[in-house]
């Protein structure tokens, strides 16, 4: 019965899937946290006991089977923290494990529940599909029930404190391990200052000889361009990528929005594919896309740069757009359904009018990013003004580098100004 307008009403399958994925994700988060803690602790053990005293502590480096032990152990910790958390702490968020007969839940039965979890979750997907309590809850004779907030117990505040402690612990651990891994050395900064001073001095006397006349050094590479030529190319790279990217991201973003796609299986599939695409392609940085396309369509070509910028723009904007679409108020959607509108009409007349201003804002924001990116994409062979910058830098021709940097600053500043003004108009 999950139909056309299931987006508003939801459906049995969709509800269960939503619950399931919520539980799966929060579980995954627990697991990852434990895994992270385990990694940090092992790193510290290795660092302080292994590298400092090279002796029998050396055995602390993991044998080949060690990793599977760590994975299983962290998994186990996550299970226990979940199940114990359910048992102990969740009253704070309005649910608690309760005995079917209203009796006390003994530690032994909690243990039973935790052990059964290992069978229940892998085999029956926790029994969520059947509705009601998961199998491990039922066998252990208990279930999660909403409870009225108990004034005697510390409620949300205690939960917040717990989270605070966890965050503090993870933060300190990260800084500690990070410091050791990166090995920051401030002495170098001071020692090298004098050498760099000369370069700064040269850059501050910029050489604008080739601002409009093509620089003959590039003719060796069968290319001929001036700073201005490449400045124009760079601006157009950013503009083209932004426009192309937002035009492609726009329709995709509606497919990547749960409230538009509804809860039918096909809706879920399309949603999952598009969101997955956004997430994967977004997590590959523009620079990496640049090196991929540089190999594909030619090193140092503008096309490689544009493609890299466009692909990342589609994914990044698509995600931002989708989140906006998911945040629209559902009332107008309902009104269009009620008047006999189709899904497309709902999107066109109830969703788009609500999201358009923020779509514009995000597009302008992306434009800013693309302008900055287009000035450095040449580093990996993406073309544009950065090509010149890195060439001169490698030659040690600092006055010319100075000139190019000034032009880049001018481009970024001008584009910032324009997009800022446009943004004011929209707000």
């Amino acid at each position, binding site marked *: 019965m999950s139909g056309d307008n299931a987006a508003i*009403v939801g459906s049995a399958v969709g509800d269960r899937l939503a619950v399931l994925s919520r539980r799966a994700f929060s579980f995954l988060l627990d697991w990852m946290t434990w895994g992270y803690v385990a990694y940090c602790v092992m790193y510290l053990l290795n660092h302080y006991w292994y590298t400092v005293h090279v002796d029998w502590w050396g055995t602390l480096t993991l044998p080949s089977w060690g990793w599977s032990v760590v994975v299983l152990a962290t998994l186990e910790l996550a299970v226990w923290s979940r199940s114990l958390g359910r048992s102990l702490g969740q009253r704070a968020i309005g649910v608690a494990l309760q005995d079917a007969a209203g009796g006390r839940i003994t530690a032994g039965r909690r243990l039973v529940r935790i052990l059964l979890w290992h069978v229940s979750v892998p085999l029956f997907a926790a029994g969520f599909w059947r509705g009601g309590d998961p199998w491990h809850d039922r066998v252990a004779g208990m279930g999660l029930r909403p409870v009225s907030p108990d004034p005697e117990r510390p409620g949300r505040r205690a939960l917040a404190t717990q989270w605070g402690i966890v965050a503090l612990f993870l933060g300190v651990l990260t800084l500690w391990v990070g410091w050791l891994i990166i090995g920051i050395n401030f002495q170098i900064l001071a020692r090298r200052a004098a050498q760099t001073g000369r370069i700064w001095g040269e850059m501050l006397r910029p050489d604008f000889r080739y601002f409009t006349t093509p620089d003959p050094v590039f003719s060796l590479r069968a290319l001929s361009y001036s700073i201005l030529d490449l400045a124009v190319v760079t601006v157009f790279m950013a503009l083209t990528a932004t426009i192309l990217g937002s035009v492609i991201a726009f329709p995709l973003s509606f497919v990547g929005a749960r409230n538009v796609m509804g809860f039918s299986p096909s809706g879920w599939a399309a949603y999952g594919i598009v969101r997955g695409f956004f997430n994967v392609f977004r997590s590959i940085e523009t620079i990496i896309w640049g090196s991929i396309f540089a190999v594909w369509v030619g090193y140092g070509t503008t096309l490689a740069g544009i493609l890299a910028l466009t692909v990342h723009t589609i994914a990044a904007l698509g995600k931002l757009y989708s989140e906006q679409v998911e945040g629209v108020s559902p009332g*107008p959607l309902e009104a*269009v359904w*009620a008047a*006999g509108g189709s899904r497309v*009409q709902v999107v066109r007349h109830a969703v788009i009018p609500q999201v358009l201003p923020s779509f514009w804002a995000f597009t302008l924001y992306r434009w800013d990013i693309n302008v900055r990116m287009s000035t450095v994409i040449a580093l990996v062979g993406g073309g544009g003004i950065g090509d010149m910058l890195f060439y001169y830098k490698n030659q040690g021709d600092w006055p010319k580098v100075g000139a190019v940097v000034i032009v880049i600053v001018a481009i970024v500043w001008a584009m910032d100004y324009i997009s800022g003004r446009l943004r004011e108009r929209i707000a």
Partner: protein
Amino acid sequence: MANPYLVVEHLTKVYERGQVLALRDLSFAVEKGEFLVVIGLSGSGKSTLLRCINRLIEPTRGRIWLDGVDLTRLSQARMRRVRRRIGMIFQQFNLVDRSTAIGNVLTGRLGYLPGWRALLGWFPKEDREKALANLERVGLRDKAYVRVDQLSGGQRQRVGIARALMQEPEILLADEPVSALDPATSHSIMQYLEQMNRQDGATVIASLHFLSLARRYGTRIIALKDGQLVFDGLPTAIDNAKFKEIYGEDAEEVEVR
């Protein structure tokens, strides 16, 4: 003997999320031209009932017959065509805040537009004229090109009414149309509904919070309590005992003038 216009048979709705039994085996019939008022405490299932009738919410069990057609059996595409004849007015108005009044009113016509036209937002000239006429009818002709977030609550609900008028509805579903409004404005809105009922011959099904409003405007009242039908009859038939049954022992009747 002709069948009643709208027949609801054994209607049951279970919300999976939270396992709520929102409607329990409701049966009643509505004749053409009636002004049926649904009363009940909040959470009693009024909104769910109205949304089951135009299937914004899928009923779990039961049948709904409109003019001899079983709505629960219709495909989504056919149901959409039926929805064009069913206007709806909402408690929270459900307008697109950033659009103009006329933009919102025109969306009432969407069911009649071919896909490509709706996609481009090209409404025919007749529709635009009709939208202006309907805004005129609710006294908002001069606000046609004002963004609705600049309008007061009463004015917004009148935009909602104009939107429903665009459908030239045979049935009007009004889900607590005046709950967000003050008493004086409430009456003006209710009078528009009464007008649609009397002049345009639309069958009205409205859920209301206040019994006094229900008595004043309804030709018949049904009452819900925890999703069950606890009263079905003339407004005058609700006495003090009945009132306490519907609203609970401690309730006091409040007048809305």
